[in-house]
């Protein structure tokens, strides 16, 4: 389709393009019909501009807008959420495009596009999206310029360049404001639900739940240790603690009402910094066992689990301290004991019988734990990501029939055995291990490192970690899961990891992402004060923030004023113009000056009328100038200009008779 090349059309196409680019950031998060309607509106508005289609009337437009708004409300049950909001913006922006006639309408559409970009930033802040955001911002700003001045002589390419340069000049200010503009310590209202996918561990454990994570190489969190690094066998990252068992599924129980046991911390203390990737879950992860809660908003429960009052919706960083060895100095309360030895009646009878048999042979709890582990080890269990299905009696099926399973199966079965032998036991889910990133200096813990293990209460020792999976697959603890299981990770990923430089590239990118999450995404008031302290402020406060802001702003404005005040400098005249000016000056001294409105030919005519003798010599030169300046370009132009210069220099004018009279007149 050939589009007419009017300025209005140009403005319309640009603003449609900008809106389209901004909508592209949301297409996967809104229903398909929203995208379809938006595309339809954009296409219709362009077709209407070519005159092929009429535009809907005001009544029809209002009806459509109302219907679409209701549809969005019906779909999302709110207009406040991020997805609902962006869907509504998409609908409204594209409908506005349909009625966009004036510059003001198009500016409103450009504003919609900016808001869509903002919504995209609120939803997703990861580094990989940043180039896309930059591109959209560039397009929208260019559209703003073109909509404001569609008829300006600048081409679209020139407008793009102009916007790019303007954005480049604006960048230092953006950095200064970003660094020093004071952030709110809290928030005025809560983040609307983004409706994004919840990732990572959940609050339940069923036989297959963790193996679904094992194929995902997405990062769960990153950990940088300050000094001492625990050995690989002790890198258990504790997450949700599960107490309640229904024979098949483990679930969390209601937290609270249980007094935490007092413990004595043994061994070295590990100090580290964790950066969580957004999971939309409440869990924070820490090395087993964390000393204290790292944040006011995060509760350290009686079973030593970190629970945030808010879901992790963006990259979150905290500093924590842990000891990997502890000993309880108090007794387990009766209620807690009852909870952690409970088994659902009449479920998994064979397992219970086995446990009672083993318990009766064992002199102590510790011996019972040992003999149970030994029982599992001797039966040739297999560790696999794709275990056969287990039935309703999942533990019996696993222990006596399939004997193939993933960490969830082992933990579940072992905890069942323990409870059947009256040893308090709980299932812990979390992550184990982590991949060292030498570039960023941290451990990357992926979703595929998700793990489940068991803690049993032993008298005099307290809660003790037992990992039955380690019996079956001891290498699991030292090496990543991908090396161990042929079916973990996708085939191309495994192939790629066999290439050293690709691994290096991936680690570099991950380090960049980690830096981004830690330094940019998680930049808050505390980080601002830390930055000020680094700049030499002693115990920085709000006022210092203001000073730094003012100083940065003033410096930027000064540089800008210098840069833009320096220009526009006068362009040097070219040789031809200088020679022409000399010629005119010569003539002005002898006869009359060239008037401002006269071109060279008018001037020659005036000379002819008043001073024919002067015109005889100067007239051809003036004609020559007009020819050189305005005539078609020819080869040998430089030589012709040089000849003209020489002719002007050689020109000697004899004062006409009127000269004496003129000088007397002055």
């Amino acid at each position, binding site marked *: 389709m050939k589009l007419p090349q009017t300025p209005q059309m140009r403005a319309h196409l640009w603003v449609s393009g900008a809106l389209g680019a901004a909508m592209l950031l949301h297409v996967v998060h809104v229903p398909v019909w929203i995208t379809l309607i938006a595309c339809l509106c954009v296409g219709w508005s362009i077709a209407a501009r070519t005159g092929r289609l009429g535009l809907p009337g005001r009544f029809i437009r209002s009806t459509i807008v109302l219907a679409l708004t209701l549809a969005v409300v019906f779909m999302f049950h709110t207009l406040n959420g991020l997805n609902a909001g962006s869907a509504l913006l998409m609908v409204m922006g594209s409908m506005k495009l349909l009625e966009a006639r004036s510059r*003001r309408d198009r500016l409103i559409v450009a504003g919609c596009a900016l808001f869509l970009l903002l919504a995209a930033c609120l939803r997703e802040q990861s580094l990989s999206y940043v180039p896309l955001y930059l591109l959209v911002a560039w397009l929208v700003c260019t559209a703003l310029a073109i909509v*404001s001045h569609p008829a300006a002589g600048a081409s679209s390419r020139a*407008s793009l360049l102009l916007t790019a340069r303007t954005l480049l000049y604006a960048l230092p200010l953006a950095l200064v404001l970003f660094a020093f503009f004071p952030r709110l310590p809290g928030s005025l209202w809560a983040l609307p639900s983004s409706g994004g996918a919840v990732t990572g561990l959940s609050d339940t454990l069923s036989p297959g739940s963790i193996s679904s994570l094992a194929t995902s190489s997405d990062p769960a969190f990153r950990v940088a240790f300050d000094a001492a690094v625990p050995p690989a066998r002790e890198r258990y990252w504790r997450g949700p603690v599960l107490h309640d068992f229904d024979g098949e599924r483990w679930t969390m129980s209601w937290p609270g009402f249980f007094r935490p046991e007092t413990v004595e911390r043994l061994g070295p203390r590990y100090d580290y910094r964790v950066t969580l990737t957004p999971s939309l879950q409440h869990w924070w992860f820490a090395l087993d066992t964390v000393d204290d809660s790292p944040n006011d908003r995060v509760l350290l429960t009686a079973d030593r689990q970190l629970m945030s009052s808010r879901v992790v919706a963006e990259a979150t960083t905290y500093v924590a301290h842990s000891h990997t060895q502890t000993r309880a100095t108090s007794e387990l309360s009766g209620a807690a004991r009852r909870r952690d030895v409970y088994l659902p009646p009449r479920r998994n009878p064979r397992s219970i019988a086995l446990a009672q048999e083993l318990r009766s042979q064992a002199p102590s709890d510790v011996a019972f734990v040992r003999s149970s582990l030994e029982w599992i080890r001797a039966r040739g269990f297999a560790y696999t990501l794709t275990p056969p299905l287990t039935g309703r009696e999942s533990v019996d099926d696993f222990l006596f029939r399939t004997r193939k399973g993933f960490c969830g199966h082992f933990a579940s079965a072992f905890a069942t055995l323990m409870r059947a032998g009256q040893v308090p036991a709980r299932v812990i889910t979390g992550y184990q291990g982590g991949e060292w990133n030498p570039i960023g200096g941290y451990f990357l813990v992926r979703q595929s490192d998700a793990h489940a293990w068991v803690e049993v209460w032993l008298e005099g020792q307290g809660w003790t970690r037992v990992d039955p999976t380690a019996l079956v697959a001891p290498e699991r603890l030292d090496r990543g899961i991908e090396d161990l299981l042929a079916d973990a990770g996708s085939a191309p990923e495994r192939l790629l990891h066999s290439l050293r430089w690709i691994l290096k590239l991936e680690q570099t990118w991950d380090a960049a992402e980690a830096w981004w999450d830690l330094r940019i995404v998680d930049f808050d008031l505390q980080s601002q004060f830390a930055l000020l302290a680094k700049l030499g402020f002693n115990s920085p406060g709000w006022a210092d923030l203001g000073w730094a802001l003012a100083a940065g702003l003033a410096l930027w404005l000064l540089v800008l004023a210098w840069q*833009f005040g320096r220009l*526009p*400098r006068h362009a040097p005249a070219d040789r031809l113009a200088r020679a022409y000016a000399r010629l005119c000056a010569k003539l002005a001294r002898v006869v009359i000056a060239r008037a401002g409105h006269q071109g060279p030919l008018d001037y*020659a005519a005036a000379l002819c009328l008043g001073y024919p003798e002067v015109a005889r010599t100067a007239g051809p030169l003036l004609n020559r100038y007009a020819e050189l300046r305005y005539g078609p370009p020819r080869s040998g132009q430089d030589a012709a200009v040089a000849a003209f210069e020489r002719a002007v220099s050689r020109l000697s004018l004899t004062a006409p008779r009127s000269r004496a009279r003129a000088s007397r007149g002055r």
Partner: protein
Amino acid sequence: MALALRARLKRRMAAWVLKRQGRDELPVELRARRLYILPTRAGVGFALLLLCMLIAGLNYGNSLALFLTFWLVGLALVAMYRCHRNLLHVVTAEALTTACFAGERGRITLTLRNDSALARQRIELDLTEDAAENASVDLPVLSTRALSISVSAPVRGILRIGRLRLSTSYPFGLFRAWTWLHLPLELIVYPRPRGNLPPPQHAGTKPGQAARGAGDEDEWLGLRVFRAGDSPRQVAWKAYARGAPLLVKEYASAGSDLRVLDYADLRSLGPEARLEQLARWIVDAEARDEHYALMLPGTQLDPDRGPEHRHRCLKALALYGLTRGVA
């Protein structure tokens, strides 16, 4: 009430600007001292948008949203500098007015010159900030461009153009930089050509004209520059051979019709109506390519024809009875 207050404020501002800048003489270079800049309505809207974005970013502690907002703040400020620079050091080289009849629209034409190595875009000219009509022009590097707007001229006489506004909102339309030009511009407004009295009959020769000699002998008037449409026979070929541009010999032909349009003949009409009737006759005579003379009390214009004569006559009508300085 609000409107009156606004108008008063505007008058005060205009007076202040005039006092501050003084009257201008051509050529006027637009230096920083005489440039003013304020956000446009779009700019205020953009600021509100940024405020919303800032609040959202601060509330959610969202670094990327805040960075985007701050970057756009920077963009707006750089746009302010760019807008100011777009007008800086532009030179108003010349200003012309084109006369018109009362009730029609006259034209003001400014010649703008760009001596710098920076291309200027979208420089607009209007009379006041809320004038309906404006015109705009792009000024490439080292260029001169004309820019003209029309002004309504309801009454015959002299229309003084108190001030003109040169402005620009390039590149982003968020700010408008402008300057006020106080140029000594006067626009001649001819009387409206109106009236249906028959024109005076061919008046024959006037006193003094007989001395010119009768017959087909045309009187030599002089040389003028060749215009498209001139007959090649009238070209001064000898002068051209000497290197002069194409010139045309002009003669006054004495043989055509001559009408004397006399103010005193129109006793039946009021003073303004007389002027309007005379204007009608002049326009008609010029359209028929006749010679005509105009006689006003105290003024007498010799018979002639052509655009310049027409202008002289109509200007005499426009200024008739006016002491200079009253529009």
